[in-house]
């Protein structure tokens, strides 16, 4: 790692890393032995510090794309570069948040947040402070010593986000992180996420099923079609930040949502009646 920051965020501006995806295809054998063509010729460039969402029907390969970028599974063809370095195997500068919070039940909230610090052997003292700060920023300072079993779903997912952010990732990959939460908690989480992103400016790749959520949070929304997954459209979303409840009534917000919805109608994922 070139970057040796150890201190907690003291107003230092941290740009996220850029991503370049060129001609990426993914085929794999399904359990029944058939070949699945998950992704076809994906080209996408994401700037450092950009917030990009991917929306698409189930099975369009958006989660696969995320796994390819993380380096946990290899692409069939094409190249992926993160921060100018070609991805071969798991990369250190990325943090993942899944739909399930995957907190470790046997660790306290604080110990869960510190898991990447232990595994990456980062400085324990300064990162402990940073972890406590992160937990405070999402209103969980009183829960540091609790076990995940004592927390609600929304609280657990906030801990999972703190765990991702404690390692100062240049790239944050989020795979439907709020998909399992109720609508109200989900809105709350969107605002938490925006606030943290505005502060840290990591590059964020955010997968969601919710068109509104994508438009609310992103600089650009990538619309994917399914089987094989292809990019159908990219919607640039320059609504003023910080965004919030008021954004939803902005005519441009409604326009973006409608444009994406029309793609889903054209793809046959949604129908008019």
């Amino acid at each position: 790692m070139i970057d040796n920051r150890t201190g907690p965020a003291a107003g230092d501006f941290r740009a996220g890393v850029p991503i370049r995806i060129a001609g990426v295809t993914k085929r794999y054998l399904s359990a029944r032995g058939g070949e699945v063509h998950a992704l076809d010729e994906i080209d996408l460039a994401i700037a450092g510090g950009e917030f990009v969402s991917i929306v698409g029907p189930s099975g369009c390969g958006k989660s696969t794309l995320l796994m390819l970028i993380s380096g946990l599974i290899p692409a069939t063809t094409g190249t992926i570069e993160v921060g100018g370095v070609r991805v071969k195997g798991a990369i250190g500068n990325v943090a993942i948040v899944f739909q399930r919070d995957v907190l470790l039940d046997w660790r306290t909230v604080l110990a869960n947040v510190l898991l990447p610090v232990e595994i990456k052997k980062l400085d324990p003292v300064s990162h402990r402070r940073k972890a406590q700060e992160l937990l405070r920023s999402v209103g969980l300072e009183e829960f540091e010593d609790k076990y995940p079993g004592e927390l609600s779903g929304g609280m657990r997912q906030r801990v999972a986000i703190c765990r991702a952010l404690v390692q100062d990732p240049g790239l944050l990959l989020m795979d439907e992180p709020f998909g399992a939460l109720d609508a109200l908690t989900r809105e709350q989480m969107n605002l938490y996420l925006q606030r943290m992103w505005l502060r840290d400016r990591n590059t964020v790749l955010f997968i969601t099923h919710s068109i509104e959520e994508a438009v609310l949070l992103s600089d650009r929304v990538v619309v994917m079609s399914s089987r094989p997954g292809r990019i159908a459209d990219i919607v640039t979303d320059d609504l003023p930040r910080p965004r919030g409840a008021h954004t939803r009534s902005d005519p441009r917000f409604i326009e973006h949502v409608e444009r994406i919805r029309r793609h889903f109608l054209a793809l046959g994922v949604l129908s008019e009646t």
Partner: protein
Amino acid sequence: MTTIAVPSPATPGKLAFWISRNGPVLAIFALVFALWEIAVRALQIPDYILPSPSVIVVKIVVSWQLLLENAFVTLQEILLGFGLSVVIAIPLAIAVVYSRIFERVAFPFMVSLQTIPKVALAPILVIWLGYGIMPKVMVAFLISFFPIVINSVIGMRSAEKEMIYLVQSMGASELTTFLKIRLPKALPSIFGGLKVGIGQAVVGATVGEFIAAERGLGYLQLISQVRLDTPLLFAAVVVLSLLGVLLFNAVAFAERIALPWSRVATDVAE
């Protein structure tokens, strides 16, 4: 106080709480023993058929030294057999989880072996290992081994795919993944296996002593049976039961120490 013990939040103190929680069970036990005592006396059942609880208690008090000596022998067999199970089963479970050959060949083989009634092997073990402590240790080992190995394998496989991805994305090695994820994730299941295993080891050691022994509680039972000393037979059963409960609780206690997180509430609203 009413006669029906209802857990009342108003009663302070640990003792009061304990009584309110365990009171009904204790009452039922007391009732059963009282009926037993009365029935034996009223119907004048001879001791060699069914001794009354008071006779059994007296027998335990009188022959405590004999019972203790033999209990110690049986305890030794149980602990050696169970210890051997743990020492072999857990590394074997790790091998099954990490090695294709073990997974495809050794594990199905072990699962099919599990269907053999281990107790039926005891006479063979006596021929091979003689009359000493070894055949009992082996029966205790064989009978407690399978629940431990199978539960350990299930536990180590129970880590979600995302959990493994998560630590791999942080650059964790296979060893780190095992120590930080698979093993702690498996602990509740492993302890489940250990709790079944310790009970089975008690059965194994006792049955081993039934087949051929010169000492131990199982042996004491055989001798008492031949002599029609039914009170001593019952006394041995009581001591054996106490031994089983004690050992089970020792494992349960270790579990509580090892898994403090499993005691927390699982459904808390925000």
